[in-house]
C-alpha cells in the first residue's frame, strides 16, 4: 500500500492519498496519451514515406524495384 501510494505520488509531488486515486487515473491517462502521441509522431515521421512506398509497390500493376531508383 505504501509503495503504491509512493509510486503514484512520485509523478505528482505528494497529493493527499484520499483524492489521489481519481486524480491519478486522470493524470495517468494524460501522461499515457502524451506518451502515445509522442511515439505516434516519431513513427509517422519516419514511417509515413516508407509506408506509401510499400503500398505503392504492392499495387496493381506491380512495379519493379529498379523503377524506384532509375530516372527513366
Amino acid at each position, binding site marked *: 500500500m505504501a509503495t503504491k501510494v509512493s509510486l503514484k505520488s512520485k509523478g505528482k509531488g505528494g497529493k493527499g492519498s484520499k483524492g489521489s486515486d481519481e486524480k491519478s487515473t486522470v493524470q495517468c491517462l494524460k501522461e499515457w496519451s502524451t506518451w502515445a*502521441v509522442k511515439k505516434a*509522431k516519431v513513427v*509517422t*515521421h519516419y514511417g509515413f*514515406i516508407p509506408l*506509401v*512506398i510499400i503500398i*505503392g509497390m504492392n499495387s496493381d*500493376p506491380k512495379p519493379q524495384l529498379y523503377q524506384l531508383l532509375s530516372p527513366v
Partner: protein
Amino acid sequence: MAGLVPPGPTTVPAGESKKAEEKTDFMNLPCPIPFEELHREALMSLKPEAFEGLRFDFTKGLNQKFSLSHSVYMGPTEIPSQSAETIKIPTAHYEFGANFIDPNLMLIGRVLTDGRLNARVKWDLTDNLTVKANAQLSNEPHMSHGIVNFDYKGKDYRSQFQMGNAALFGASYIQSVTRHLSLGGEVFWAGQHRKSGIGYAARYETDKMVATGQVASTGVVALSYVQKVSEKVSLASDFMYNYITRDVTSSVGYDYILRQCRLRGKIDSNGCAAAYLEERLNMGLNFILSAEIDHRKKDYKFGFGLTVG
C-alpha cells in the same frame, strides 16, 4: 371550326415540362462544394503560388496509382521579421515525395532535406464518409502540427468535424438552399490559444459567375466575385475586410486558360501586382514563370521553374 385546334393534352405537357425544368425541385438539390473550398474559384485566379528563385519538379509515375516526385528549390526564403523590412535568407533544398492515388485512398508524403515531413491522407470509408488527415512534422520540438477531418456528405448538404493538435476543434456545415445558392456556417475552438469563433458563409453560383461571402467572428469579412467571361477567360475580384484590425484589401485579377498556357495576373490595393505563367512546352514538360512586385514594401520576387511529368 375544324381549323381551330383547341389546346389539347399533347401541347400543354410539353410547355409544362419545360417550365418544370426551370423550376427548382427542392427535393433534388445538388450537393454543395465543401465549406473550405467556398472561395475556390477566386483563390485559383487571385492567389497563385508565387515563388522566388529556381524550382524544378520531376514526377515519375511507376504505375497508374503510384508515383515518386523529386523537387529542387533554390532561392531566397522570407523569414518573419518585426521591422517593416523583409529579411530574406538564401536557401536550397531537395524534396522527395511519394504519392499513392486510388479512388478510395490517397496518400501523399513529402520529406525535405532538413527533415520536415508533410503528410496528407484522404480515405473514403464509404460513399459519404471521408477521413482526411494533414500533418507537418519537424524535428524541432513544438513545431509540428496535425489535423484530422471527418467529412460527411449528405444528399444536399455537407458537414465536417475537425480535430487538431493544440486542442483545436472545428465543425462546419453547408447546405444547398436553392439550385444556385448554398449557405453554411462553421465554429471552431482553439484550446491552447483560448480562442473560439463562429462564421457564416454564402455562395451563389451559376454557369457564368460565382459570388461568395464569408463573415467570421475573428473579424474577417471576405467577399469575392468571379465572372466566367468565356471558356478561356475568367475575371475575379476579391474584398477582404477585418473589422477588428480595420484592415482592408481588395484585389482584381484575371485567369486565361489557353491551349498551351495558363496565365494569371492580379493587382492588389496594397500596391502588389503579381503574375503567374504556366506554359506547356511539350507533353509533360511545363515551364513556369512567377513574378510578384510589391511596391509598398519594395519587395520584388521573380521565379522560374520547370515541371516534368
